[in-house]
Every structure is written in C-alpha cells, then in structure tokens.
C-alpha cells in the first residue's frame, strides 16, 4: 500500500513537470514548417496527401529504416518461434474450435472486398488518406480471413520472407535511383522540374512496394503466432 502511494506521488511529480513545461507551448509553437510544406509540398513531390509527401520524399530515409525495422522484427519473431521438430503443415488453432458457419459465410463475402479496399488505399496513397503502410495492414487482415475460410491452408513462411527481403532490396534500389537523375540519395527519381503527375508515378510505385512488404511481414507474424497456438 505504502509503495503504491509513493508511486502515485512520483507520477504526480512527473505530471507536474510536464504541466510546467507545457505552460509556454503557445510561444514555442510556430507554423513555419507547416506553412512551407503546405505551400511547396504539392509542387515538390506531386503528392496531394502531404503526409505521403513527407514519408516518401522529404523524409524517405526515415521510411526506409522503418521498413527495415519491420523486416528485422519479422526475422526475430520467426527465429524465436523456431521449433526443433520440423513440421510440414502446422495444425492451426482455429480448427480446434469449430468455426461457426456464419463466420465462414461472411468471411467469403468480405474477403474480396477487403482485398480491393486494401489495394485502393495503397494506390491512392498520394491523393487520399492512406498509403503503403496502412493499405498493407488492410491486405494482411484480408489474407488472415482466409484462415477462417480454410483452416488447413498451407503457408510457406520461408518463401514469404525471401520475397519480403527481395522487396526490401528493391525498395532501397528504387529509392537510390535519384542518385543518377538528381545527384542526391533517397528522393524522387524524376527531375525536380517534372510535372506533379509524372512524379506521382514514383509515389504509386513506392507505395505499392511498401504495401506488399508490410502485408507479407504482418502475414508472417500472424502465421508464426497461429503455429504457436496449435
């Protein structure tokens, strides 16, 4: 009891520090960066969605390492979940509990819609809310619904991870193409004077590749967990 009171007191002190530091936030806050991106973002990158403009052009370096961390985490999950005995097709947790027929029927209805919506979100990442990371998550969810429809589905994790690694190298290559055309790393490989519509080709290409990579990564993680729960 006394320990918890001390803990709450310490957390109160933390809150006090934060409260004091937030007092002059209105003076510290400025809109220079926001105004610059709003004024020049579309002409610079060809992306109407300014978040995508930052993710795939201004700060592409960040996004590349983000995708790299996803790849490392997937490798870690697979390595930790490795089993001594090599089973060919793991019995999934789902078929222990009989899936209700209603679930299966509605999964069949929803599955193509989710796939289509995921691709829509990926491809329109530069004009509407969305992008590679979000759309990839939607597609991964759609693939997971497949396990409701057919629990005996065989998944070759090694193949998926190999495709993911190749995709990551391809993303790095596409991102470094700008060294040839613009003379600087990790930006759009079309020249800076190109029209926004031309630049959008690069955005769609990179969004699709990142979306595929994220979808494959999340699929791998989910399959590893399903095998644990058998």
């Amino acid at each position: 009891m006394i320990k918890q009171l001390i803990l709450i007191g310490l957390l109160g002190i933390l809150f006090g520090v934060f409260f004091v530091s937030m007092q002059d936030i209105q003076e510290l806050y400025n809109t220079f960066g926001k105004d610059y991106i709003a004024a020049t973002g579309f002409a610079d990158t060809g992306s109407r969605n300014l978040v995508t403009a930052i993710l795939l052009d201004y700060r592409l370096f960040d996004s590349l390492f983000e995708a790299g961390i996803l790849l490392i985490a997937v490798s870690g999950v697979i390595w930790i979940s490795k089993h001594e005995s090599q089973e060919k097709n793991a019995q999934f947790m789902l078929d222990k509990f009989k899936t209700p027929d209603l679930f299966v029927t509605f999964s069949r209805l929803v599955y193509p819609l989710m796939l289509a919506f995921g691709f829509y979100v990926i491809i329109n990442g530069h004009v509407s809310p969305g992008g590679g990371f979000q759309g990839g998550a939607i597609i991964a969810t759609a693939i997971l619904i497949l396990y409701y429809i057919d629990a005996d589905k065989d998944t070759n994790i090694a193949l998926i991870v190999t495709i993911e690694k190749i995709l990551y190298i391809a993303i790095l290559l596409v991102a470094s193409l700008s060294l040839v055309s613009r003379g600087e790393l990790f930006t759009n490989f079309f020249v800076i004077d190109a029209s926004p519509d031309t630049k959008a080709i690069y955005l769609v290409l990179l969004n699709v590749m990142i979306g595929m990579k994220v979808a494959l990564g999340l699929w791998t993680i989910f399959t590893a967990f399903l095998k644990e729960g058998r």
Partner: protein
Amino acid sequence: MNPLLTFVVILIGFYGLSTSSNIIKSVFCVTIIESGVILLFLNLGNLDGGVIPIIGDALPVGGIADPLPQALMITTIVIGSTVTALALMLCIKVFHHYGTVEWAEILSRESGK
C-alpha cells in the same frame, strides 16, 4: 483534446508497468504508453486547429494540421505493432519454459536455483 490529458494516458501506462504482476499485462501497458505518445504528438501538431493535410487545387480554409508529426506517428504505429508482436512471442517462450507468466514466480524460481 488537451495535451495534458494525453500525458495522463502515458502516466496510466507507467503506473500499470510498475504494478502489474503479469508479463502480458506489462506488454499491454507498453502499448498504452505508446498510444499516449501518439495522441500527444498528434495534439502538438494541431494546436491551432485545422483540417487533414490533403490539399486540393487550393489550400483549405482555416489551415491544415501539421503533417510532420502525423508522418512520424505512422512510423511509431508500425514499429510499435511489430515490437509488441516480438514481446508477445517472447512471452510464449517464457511460458513454455517456466509454465507461468507471473513476474514474482519466475523471479523466485530463478533466485532459488
């Protein structure tokens, strides 16, 4: 929403992290802290109001929200989800090894060896 409220969410996560007796609950508390941080950043990017940072032919009236914190938070969400998956996988391995996911029991068993 006030930035102070988002900091309360972070503090709730800290409190749970310090008091939870179960490994899985600790992982949940880490995700709660993460949600608090995401809310805090999104708040700070939109202190003076504004609409989503998607521009049509003209800038939207009333200004836009700052797109930079939003782009950073996409990074946080993706990394957070994968790190949570990694932590939960470690939890499964701990359970297979010790037969329990209670901190106290694991610690006592380790010190008893």
